[in-house]
């Protein structure tokens, strides 16, 4: 357990030492989204009755920040360690694949939640928010962060240079989060795109998370939870398999 704890602590310390870049900057970005989109769309978009567009947008932005930063944490830590070669410090000790997985993913969850909390604290002032089901808020935040932390781990193991990781981030993670209903309800989309959205697991994370605030969502939160949970298990199983076989790390 000490090995796991140490690696977890190291991963926390790593992002904390550059908090301006890893915490403050993403909070600032989310704030800009809120100011611009909230201002422009407030009068034009109505998603749910009795909920202003800004109030609708805030949980989406919080969740988007949680997801993107959880992904960024595990993936950038791994690729940096691989490229600078200091990954040997983690590969030489008797750390099991479970400990490696747990430490990287849990640290990613902490970073995701820290940024998400920061975004929430500074955006919550702009609208009246309710907390109909706080447990769902917590469940989707943690599970979503864990899933993206796991995806970051897989991307970090797979990528051999920053370029490949950037491709993963820009062509997969970014579109998947933007198209998951951060800025709109999928009910406002044409039927074809509604169907496409339902194949995007990120949609269920954001939809379920938003349910926790308003008690309204496009999909039943239990269904969303089941879908996100299954995705997470599949990805976690895959990541642990890669760590156990030493794919690209012990070659």
């Amino acid at each position, binding site marked *: 357990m*000490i*090995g796991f*704890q*140490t*690696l977890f*602590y*190291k991963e926390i*310390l*790593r992002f904390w*030492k*550059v908090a301006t870049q890893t915490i403050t900057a993403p909070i600032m970005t989310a704030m800009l989204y809120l100011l611009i989109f909230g201002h422009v769309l407030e009068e034009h978009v109505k998603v749910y009755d009795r909920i202003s567009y800004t109030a609708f947008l805030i949980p989406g932005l919080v969740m988007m920040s949680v997801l993107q930063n959880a992904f960024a944490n595990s993936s950038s830590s791994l690729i940096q*360690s691989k490229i*600078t*070669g*200091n990954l*040997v*410090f*983690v*590969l*030489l*000790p*008797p*750390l*099991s694949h479970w400990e490696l997985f747990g430490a990287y993913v849990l640290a990613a969850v902490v970073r995701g939640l820290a940024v998400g909390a920061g975004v929430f604290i500074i955006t919550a002032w702009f609208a009246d928010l309710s907390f109909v089901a706080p447990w769902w808020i917590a469940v989707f935040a943690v599970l979503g962060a864990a899933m993206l932390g796991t995806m970051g781990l897989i991307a970090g193991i797979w990528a051999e240079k920053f370029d490949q990781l950037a491709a993963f981030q820009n062509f997969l993670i970014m579109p998947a989060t933007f198209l998951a209903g951060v800025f709109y309800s999928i009910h406002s989309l044409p039927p074809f795109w509604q169907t496409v959205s339902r194949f995007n697991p990120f949609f269920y994370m954001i939809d379920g998370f938003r349910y926790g605030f308003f008690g309204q969502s496009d999909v039943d939160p239990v269904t969303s939870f089941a879908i996100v949970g299954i995705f997470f298990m599949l990805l976690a199983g895959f990541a642990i398999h890669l760590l156990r076989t*030493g794919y690209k790390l*012990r*070659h």
Partner: protein
Amino acid sequence: MQEAYTAIMAAIQITNVKKRYKSVQALAGVSLSIGQGEFFGLLGPNGAGKTTLISIIAGLNRADSGNVSIHGHDVVSDYRQARRMLGVVPQELVFDPFFTVRETLRMQSGYFGLKNNDAWIDEVMHNLDLTSKADANTRTLSGGMKRRVLVAQALVHKPPVIVLDEPTAGVDVELRQTLWQFIGRLNREGHTVVLTTHYLEEAQALCNRVAMLKAGQVVALDTTAALIKRISGSQLVVSLAQGHLPDSLKPLVTRPEELLAGNKYTLRVNDYVEVEPILARLREAGARIEDMQLQQADLEDVFLQIMGEEK
């Protein structure tokens, strides 16, 4: 001789290890047994497979076939125990730019399951002259200092087996002395040390036993003293002011590159009585000797001769 080392459990037992990278056979069936408490040298030219072998021992790479065990623990199936027994100083000068020297060493201790390891960390830093840099960020250290941190990291868990992969490449004399003093002490206290190096005088001075690798195979394995004795008794070094080495003497040259350039030749002599006939042949060939020395062969001569032999 070999049996004496394997009688007790080996520190490192390597059995028929093979590794291929696409078209290159990096290791072509290596078997070695390194006894506990040995100071063992792993020598060979670049590309001979030394680093691949060390990576397999350390679990940084996996063999295609064959086994490696550390103190009886298989490096794949029982990797946790095996890695606890092993401290590896990697060849590449790597560091984590986020942390200070002390943070780095505390974390490395933690990875090995050790808490409250500061007393030993302080001792390691003291012995490697790192104490004054304890709170400096590793990013700000010179190359030599970074190398010391790497050595310290490999020793945080007091491993019974220490592997150093070219630890003195590009390192100043002071660090070499500090390093060998400390590693020497650990070896005397019972730690097994495995060293790869390009500095053969270093291997000769430190290692009690040596394995030479060539193209992924062990081509020599013996005590350092026996190797030097077995290959060649003495050497006659002649510098010619005039004329050339006659063809009849060319097979005696121990360093093939000397035949290509220069006027200095190192000739193998098994006995002193062979010196006079060599000088006579040089005179007959019209060569005039400028300088002449009779010297004991060293590990470098043995190395060059073994590596020069056609397999």
